[in-house]
């Protein structure tokens, strides 16, 4: 496993576009939370009795996880970029020719995805500590499970991006499908199935891969307003883990049986 991580490290170590992308992403994570933080500050200043983005403990973890989740498409793009690069340069072939097994090639990408998810999660945790402390003047770890949910959500997005990249092989196409599916089609498909086909007798829309992970971290007032019909967090967590395993399994399958 260590040698696979080292291999991925050698591939990205001197890849400037990758580091710029990653740095911008982390800066953006901080910035988007800063915007929400300022927004909530304005509300507080004007004594309006709503708390959309609570940045005090313990709710800060949930707020940060929710706000940050809007940017998860970017680490997803990074994943797509790193995988489709291999197809572009045909280095996926060269790696195999040089003596990597096909499983090892996918395993290395999975490790890479987990690492990116960890970086995202760690950034969110530090941002939460910073803003939480700034807002309430103390530190508390209540509600920190939302940072953990954030890790699961990152894996859902990243592994979904991985299987798209392996299926499409071209970065532009994979990214377009990734964005359009996540932002439009998933909601559309779920909504149509629920309202037109099932007549809202049962809800399926919460069981789609990205949506399940989104609902896992609802906006702080969302649970009572938007997601009244949503399944429990345990169920959502299991659904997410099933999808993560499925995407990993399909990635292995796809790369194992393909002509490269």
């Amino acid at each position, binding site marked *: 496993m260590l040698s696979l991580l080292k291999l991925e490290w050698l591939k990205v170590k*001197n890849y400037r576009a990758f580091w710029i992308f990653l740095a911008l992403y982390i800066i953006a994570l901080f910035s988007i939370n800063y915007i929400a933080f300022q927004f909530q500050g304005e509300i507080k200043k004007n004594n309006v009795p709503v708390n959309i983005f609570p940045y005090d403990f313990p709710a800060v973890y949930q707020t940060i996880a929710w706000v940050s989740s809007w940017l998860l498409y970017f680490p997803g793009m990074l994943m797509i970029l790193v995988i489709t690069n291999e197809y572009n340069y045909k280095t996926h072939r*060269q790696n195999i020719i040089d003596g990597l097994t096909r499983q090892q090639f996918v395993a290395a990408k999975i490790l890479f995805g987990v690492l990116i998810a960890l970086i995202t999660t760690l950034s969110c945790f530090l941002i939460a500590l910073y803003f939480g402390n700034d807002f309430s003047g103390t530190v508390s770890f209540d509600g920190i499970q939302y940072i953990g949910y954030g890790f699961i959500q990152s894996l859902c997005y990243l592994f979904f991006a991985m299987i798209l990249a392996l299926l499409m092989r071209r970065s532009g196409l994979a990214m377009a499908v990734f964005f359009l599916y996540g932002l439009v089609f998933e909601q559309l498909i779920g909504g149509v199935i629920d309202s037109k086909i099932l007549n809202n007798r049962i809800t399926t829309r919460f069981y789609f891969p990205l949506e399940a992970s989104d609902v896992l971290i609802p906006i702080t007032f969302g649970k009572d307003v938007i997601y009244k019909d949503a399944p429990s967090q345990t169920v959502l967590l299991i659904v997410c883990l099933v999808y993560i395993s499925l995407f990993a399994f399909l990635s292995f399958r796809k790369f194992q049986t393909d002509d490269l």
Partner: protein
Amino acid sequence: MNILELNNITKHYKTVTALNNVSFTVPEGSVFGILGPNGSGKTTLLGIILDILKPSAGSFTLMGKPANAEVRKQIGTLLETPNFYHYLSGEKNLRIAAQIKGKGFNEIDNVLQKVNLYQRKQSKFNTYSLGMKQRLAIASCLLGDPQILIFDEPTNGLDPNGIAEIRELILKLAAEGKTIIMASHLLDEVEKVCTHVAIIKNGDLLTAGSVKEVLVTDEIIEVASDNLVALENVLNKMGGFTSLKKQNSMLQLFFSNGNANAAAINQYCFQNNIALNHLQSKKKSLETKFLELTNKQ
């Protein structure tokens, strides 16, 4: 020991059969040329051996074992188009290859020097000329001093100097006792370096074996004199050849291998009052033989 053994390898793509029941063996220490026109299935065959393509049917062994990643680490491979990370330097690219092959990085400078790329090792791959890219690929395949080398059209796109360098390299590696498997459509190249050949056309194996067996070359003697009709009569009287062909201003006599004797012909003609003004013995070129074999079907 046989380095490579193919058993009825078949590969179908959607509409075409790229390889049809191909079987042959590559003995240790040979320089094995896989010959065939463009699109005959050579690259597909090498792709299967290297596990980047899956055969539709059939099996093969490398070094007596079913192929696996560990065996591939012991093979140096040079493909038609070098595959490297464009944004990394030549040296950094070789580090990746060395990491996969499980070799140390300390060999890298050495192989870069061997291919005259040491001075440019810090330059990014996408700034290299085609020849330099190809040389980097050679450096990569020399990592770990492999005993088996696989070359796919190794001189494609190279200038005459580059072609000569590759040829020298192949001969040098062969002299070191390494087994070399090489796909090419350049007969000249194969003729100069190979000990064994397999000829493929449209996915079918036409023939395989040692160069001596496969390319049993006919010998040709060309003769001419002022009076070709009289010359032909005399030669027919003398006999010994398998066939006689009239060219513009000369006659070509075909002999089976080892039966041609230019001196005897010269003497016989002279004794029969014919003075030859042209006498040359030739071997049928591999090219003619190849065209014969591949056009037969």
